């Protein structure tokens, strides 16, 4: 379970998040929706420790991790796939994976999830397509064997057949039963359908939340239409 309690955060003097409360239920899934610039990425950066809070707390399975460095949070079981298909461009696909775990059987396991990576192992990640890089980014994070995965717009700007593949991986993870997912998504339909809980974020404030699932989609769509 991941909890944000009264989190206010921002960059320098400008605040971006205001008193945000959010709960991702243990072994469940939550999604955050909001327009461009609402503060979704900022919220995730606070959750993974890249951005300090101005006030408030971050709890992982009840443990206060507010002042823990990102790499320590990874050791605590947090996995993060940032927005923008980020890779280490001058390292090969294989080296990107080996960075997280050099164990070949573990690498084979995550490559089985994204078979397209198999033929790209010796290519510098900077030369992969956006979709390939996103598959690499997800595979690399899963290689760390997280208990909880945080994904920031994993299908943004990616062609439909790869989107379907990535969405299937996310669905599989949520159905595993021992895995927690926090998803930021523009595709309201997909996000709300797979979520136990959804949140809407507007200008840094939580403006709506509720139980997810197929039945909630229309209501969320309506609440977000401007």
């Amino acid at each position: 379970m991941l909890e944000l309690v009264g989190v206010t955060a921002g960059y320098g003097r400008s605040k971006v998040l205001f008193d945000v409360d959010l709960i991702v239920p243990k072994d469940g899934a939550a999604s955050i929706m909001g327009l461009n610039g609402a503060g979704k990425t900022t919220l995730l950066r606070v959750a993974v420790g890249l951005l300090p809070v101005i006030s408030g707390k971050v709890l992982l399975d009840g443990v206060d991790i507010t002042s823990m460095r990102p790499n320590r949070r990874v050791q605590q079981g947090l996995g993060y796939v940032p927005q923008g298909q980020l890779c280490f461009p001058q390292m090969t696909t294989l080296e990107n994976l080996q960075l997280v775990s050099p164990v070949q059987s573990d690498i084979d396991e995550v490559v089985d999830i994204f078979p397209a990576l198999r033929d790209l192992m010796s290519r510098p990640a900077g030369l992969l397509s956006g979709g390939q890089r996103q598959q690499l980014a997800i595979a690399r994070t899963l290689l760390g064997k997280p208990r909880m995965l945080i994904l920031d717009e994993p299908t943004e700007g990616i062609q439909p057949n790869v989107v379907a593949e990535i969405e299937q991986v996310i669905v599989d993870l949520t159905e595993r039963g021992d895995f927690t997912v926090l998803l930021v998504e523009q595709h309201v339909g997909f996000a709300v359908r797979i979520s136990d809980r959804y949140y809407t974020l507007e200008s840094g404030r939580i403006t709506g939340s509720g139980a997810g699932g197929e039945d909630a989609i229309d209501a969320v769509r309506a609440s977000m239409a401007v």
Partner: protein
Amino acid sequence: MDALTTPFLTGTATGAILLMAALGLTLTFGQMGVINMANGEFLMVGAYVAYLTQQVISSAGVSIIIAIPIAFVVAGLLGLVLEATVIRWMYDRPLDTLLATVGVALVLQQLAKDIFGAQGDPVVLPGWLDARINVFGYEWPLRQLFTILLAVASLALLNALLRYTSFGRRIRATVQNRQLAETQGVPTRNVDRMTFFLGSGLAGVGGVAISLISGTNPTLGTSYIIPAFLVVVLGGVGQLKGTVLAAWGVGVATAFLTDWTSGSMAQVMTFALVVAMLTLRPQGLFTVRTRSLA
């Protein structure tokens, strides 16, 4: 023939020393945005380690070989101390680190003067190094060849470390995207410390080579630090291949210019040459092209 061979070989040996000094600079600048002017003093420390080892172990041949790893560790540890006490507060503020480390350099020089005296000490050459080999009629001192071999070996080890070990992958990941590295579980603070250790240690090894050529001296670092910086800038920050070529180029160019003019004139002209080159290629000799540098 001699007019070409001599400066070429001597310049290559100088380039080898510049390389040992520049590797640490380029690693720490590329990874942490730190300009460490005290790196020259790690050369000096390495030279004194060679001298001191010789005081303890009288066989010059044995002591030189033993001095190499000791110099690496001692200079490396000093680098760690410098990082922990001064530099860690100034990451990504190159100008601040430059000023602070100039101060540290002066302190270290004064310390060396207090301990060893302002005059340098000679380091005895082992018999097998105190020889010359004939290259196209030039009697080339073997210690210069030894210096080159030492630099090549260090470079090969560094390259293997960066390419094939998990520590090397962590360094490269941290250089390419620090925040992403951190969120993929890389303890970037520790990686920074280790890089500092490594870079300072390499300068220490370079110092052993210098001691064979010109003995020890409390201020020997000052004559190497500026050309080493030229090498870093010319080679492209963080680029191993570029740094090697730049070191060689600056070493050989200085040797030829010294031959034709005078020592100080040669330094000035090398400097001008580098500035001219950078006007044409501001990114250094090499650039890395990828689809996305995110």
